[in-house]
């Protein structure tokens, strides 16, 4: 059995007296598609923030690709190969769509490959990343002028441009129409097929169950289920939490 790409052991986080995460354990294997679900307030976003380093966890240990991430800044985690998208798109609004992609390439991807890209390579790879998400025609627009669906695509393209091993897609589909959801879903499948492990955090059950090979369920800061998607969805505890008694 291969060793996990990401291993979270006993991760805890509190805001003042409020325990948000209480000893979370889970693993993600290379190339895996993991769904992370749970009701509102269960700690999903805090988990994402602690994994990406936007917040620092209080207890436990996060290791990624053989490296302990505890105490590392987000940019150092990006260098390690961990990328995330934001729930509410956070583009570099006053830069062109193309330059939005160049930033993670110039910083994260260069650091990971250990060499400087020349201008032609940057241009070329940024165009490829945009082509992959279908934003090539909008490369020269200001990122701030994009529509919601395009912003979601840009978030993903920016994450891919860092050439990660693991992508954490934080509610990439929230608020999108069904056809748009399918577009994003297809994109995530495509990224995964290139060998990138994906953690999908999502409320849209149709998308999560179609995408995930395995589900981790959080409720009130604790992990209550972890296993193959269909099994977890049949779990009476998960059903009760999602649908009520």
């Amino acid at each position: 059995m291969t060793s996990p790409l990401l291993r979270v052991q006993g991760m805890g986080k509190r805001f003042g007296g409020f325990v948000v995460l209480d000893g979370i354990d889970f693993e993600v294997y290379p190339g895996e598609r993991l769904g992370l679900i749970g009701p509102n307030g269960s700690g999903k976003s805090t988990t994402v923030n602690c994994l990406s380093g936007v917040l620092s966890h209080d207890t436990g240990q996060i290791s990624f690709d053989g490296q302990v991430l505890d105490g590392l800044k987000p940019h150092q985690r990006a260098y390690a190969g961990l990328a995330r998208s934001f729930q509410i798109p956070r583009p570099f609004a006053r830069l062109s769509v193309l330059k939005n992609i160049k930033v993670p390439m110039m910083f994260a991807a260069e650091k990971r490959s250990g060499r400087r890209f020349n201008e032609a390579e940057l241009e070329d790879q940024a165009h490829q990343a945009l082509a992959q998400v279908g934003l090539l025609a909008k490369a020269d627009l200001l990122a701030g002028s994009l529509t919601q669906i395009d912003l979601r695509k840009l978030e993903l393209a920016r994450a891919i441009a860092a050439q990660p091993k693991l992508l954490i897609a934080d509610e990439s589909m929230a608020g999108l129409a069904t056809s748009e959801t399918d577009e994003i879903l297809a994109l995530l499948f495509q990224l995964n097929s290139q060998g990138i492990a994906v953690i999908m955090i999502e409320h849209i059950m149709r998308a999560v169950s179609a995408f995930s090979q395995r589900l981790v369920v959080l409720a009130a800061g604790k992990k209550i289920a972890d296993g193959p998607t269909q099994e977890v969805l049949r779990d009476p505890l998960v059903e009760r939490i999602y649908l009520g008694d």
Partner: protein
Amino acid sequence: MFTSNTRFLIGLLIAGATIFLGVKALAEGYYLLVAYYILQYIVLATAWNILGGYGGYVNFGSACFFAVGGYTTVFFYKLLGLQALKSLDFGGFIITAPFIAYLIIPASVLMGAAVSGLMGLATGYLTLRLRGVFFAISTLALTVVVQTLVLNWSYVGGARGAYVMRPPSVAGFASTSEFVFFAMLLIAMAALAIARNVEHQKLGAGLEAIRDDEDSAECSGVPTLQLKLQATTLSGALMGAAGALFPYFVTFVDPVGAFNLVHTVNSIAMPLIGGMTHWSGPLIGAVLLGGVQQYFGSKNMVTPELSLLFVGVLMMVFVAIAPNGILGLWQRLRGKDVK
């Protein structure tokens, strides 16, 4: 035929030579004065824009970095007893009076840049955890603190100020003023070249990402603290270099003049009016605004206070109708959006 870098350098050298020879040909102290002040503002505005325009961190402390450069000159001037300096002897190699300026003025500029650069690094380290308006307030506070220190430091003249007796003549130049002016011209050219370089390098791209969304930049691998420190250091050093020449140009420094709010306001207003996303924005702003101020100032048509009011109103107008400055307006007219 040429790369854009070569074209830029050639353009810069031609412009520099034209300005220098033009001012020399006019042979009138007034034009030298006006040109010096505009060049000084080109440096301050360009320096401010590296942190403020690219990085989005508004520095209200330009006057402080400028003054620290100036007072570094005063400090070393007194410490080394430069007023009594007639010639320098380096083990038999004697530098005579007409050549002394070639040594002490560039040395002062480097010292001023170093001290202000270090102050930029230190303030950056202490305050860059503060974002937005809180950072701006802290830089304003820095100015007040440093000004109070200088006011009470009699070695550098305290509230009375200090005189700097500059070398009476400089070999190869018509006057010492002309030499100081030439030095400022070189600093301004260097500042523009540095800003353009920052813009085209990783530092510029990283700062722009920080300006638009700092968390998002971090998650894209941008080492935000490191880049912000580079920007505060570089910005501070350029302001300090401009400040270090000031005592040699006016021969007298006092806290009121050196820490003047005008330096701060102009170094914000000029990039804002010219355009903050491109190295030429602060240049355009400094030439226009500086030129207008000098023109009206010379005709005794306005007092410095009125001029400051005018700058304030102009800033509000630009923020309201042309937040991307003259460059933004120009690009909009040509039907191109700001990059």
